[in-house]
């Protein structure tokens, strides 16, 4: 009992440590990879491979002036950046990183992930509103409508996986993929979830709430110092979260050939998807706001309903036979 409790705290500490370092390291990874794809070197001076740029960036963020605009709603303004980091870190509680590396083994794990991602919207909305700035407000309104509409079919796309494994528990979903990864029967669901996940983390094809070329910096235009840093880290944590959800739900989680332990497989697979996120940023233009909404409601939403319907029908037929 004692050792189990100690192990539990080790898992929580390990997960937090790895995640926060990953999020910081992603700053370097993203800048280097973007640079390589654009035929330049990127930050390569400080330390080995330029890795110390992370340290320099962090120190710079800490020492910047922490400015709260006099026209802002102070309490909400301070509170908003914390929401995104807290909600994303909470979602990691339900993700099984390995056979026994799991913080919360819940029977509503998947729903908890959806709930936390819908709470995460508040940081954009409140941050933009509290800044009391028209660009920030525009960004916040775009963010709210984008995330609400993409959340709907993100949930619907995930229901296909739930149907196949018969559980909301992510550990059970991973174990149900022992014979075949969910990517095979749920390819459409995977594509829809990937697109919705990019929109949920408002990363580059869908970074409409920020849209630096038209809205200055969107919802975080007024933020500086470590408050901006929280939004920044929250975004990278979100990328990691969506990547690890994709791995757990569609790519067999920790499963893989036995010469490597499960955690290593999980981390490797997750990094593949993180790199995909960065590649998408490097290669895709930003759509217009109305195009984004139309694409969501008129294409992806019906497709996810169709996916759900067909999956349910096939499962019923298989059961009959």
């Amino acid at each position, binding site marked *: 009992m004692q050792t189990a409790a100690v192990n539990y705290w080790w898992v929580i500490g390990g997960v937090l440590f790895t995640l926060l370092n990953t999020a910081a390291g992603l700053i370097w990874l993203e800048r280097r990879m973007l640079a390589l794809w654009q035929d330049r070197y990127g930050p390569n001076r400080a330390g080995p491979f330029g890795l110390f740029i992370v340290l320099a960036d962090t120190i710079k963020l800490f020492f910047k002036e922490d400015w709260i605009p006099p026209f802002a*709603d102070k309490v909400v303004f301070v509170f908003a950046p914390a929401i995104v980091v807290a909600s994303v870190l909470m979602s990691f509680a339900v993700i099984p990183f390995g056979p026994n590396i799991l913080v919360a083994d819940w*029977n509503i794990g998947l729903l908890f992930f*959806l709930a936390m991602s819908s709470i995460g919207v*508040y940081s954009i909305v409140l941050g933009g509103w509290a800044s009391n700035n028209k660009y920030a407000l525009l960004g916040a309104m775009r963010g709210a409508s984008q995330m*609400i509409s993409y959340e709907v079919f993100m949930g619907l796309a995930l229901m296909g996986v739930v149907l196949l494994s018969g559980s909301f528990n992510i550990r059970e979903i991973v174990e149900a993929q022992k014979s075949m990864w969910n990517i095979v029967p749920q390819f459409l669901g995977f594509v829809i979830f990937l697109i919705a996940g990019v929109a949920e983390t408002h990363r580059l094809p869908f970074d409409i709430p920020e849209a630096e070329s038209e809205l200055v910096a969107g919802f975080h235009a007024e933020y500086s110092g470590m408050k901006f840093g929280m939004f920044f880290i929250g975004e990278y944590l979100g990328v990691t979260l969506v990547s690890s959800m994709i791995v757990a739900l569609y790519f067999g989680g920790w499963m893989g050939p036995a010469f490597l332990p499960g955690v290593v497989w999980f981390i490797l697979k997750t990094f593949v998807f993180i790199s995909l996120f960065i590649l998408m940023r490097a290669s895709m233009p930003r759509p217009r706001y109305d195009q984004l909404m139309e694409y969501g409601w008129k294409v992806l939403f019906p497709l996810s309903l169709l996916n759900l319907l067909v999956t349910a029908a096939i499962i019923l037929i298989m059961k009959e036979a």
Partner: protein
Amino acid sequence: MGVAFYIAGAIAVLSTLMVITRYNIMHALLYLVVSFLSVAVIFYLYGAPFMAALEVIVYAGAIMVLIIFFVMMLNLGPQTAGDEQLWLKPRIWIGPTILCLVLLAELGYLIVQQSSPADDIVLVDPKAVGKSLFGPYILAVELAGMLLMAGIVGAYHLGRQRKKITHRFLERTSS
């Protein structure tokens, strides 16, 4: 269990009080979100994890974001806090207070009458909720579906845009 319930309950009551008494509508809505979250915790404690998750996803996550969205569009908030202050005179409190006191008296009576809270908590998992929704309560589900369908059709009708024809010759012939 007991302590967690009382903490969550106290937060729910406090935040709901704050919802009513805030003049700044945005702050009131934020307290309402906190209230929903604490109700979700109570649901979870009393064996309804599915309801707890849905409370967060649907109420705190979706509906409140939509309401905040409209508050933002109408640019309410600190600008209208003065108006709210004018409207919310002490006299207005009399009616709701009397009604609440009646409810409180009823609650107190019930607590005194039978002091046995539900000790045997039955865990209601998602499957059980689904089975009862599509078994005995199918009629209610269908009716709610029809209501929502009517809402969607209405919203589509209101938000419909006529196709804009920018060419001057075509504009005359259409219409």
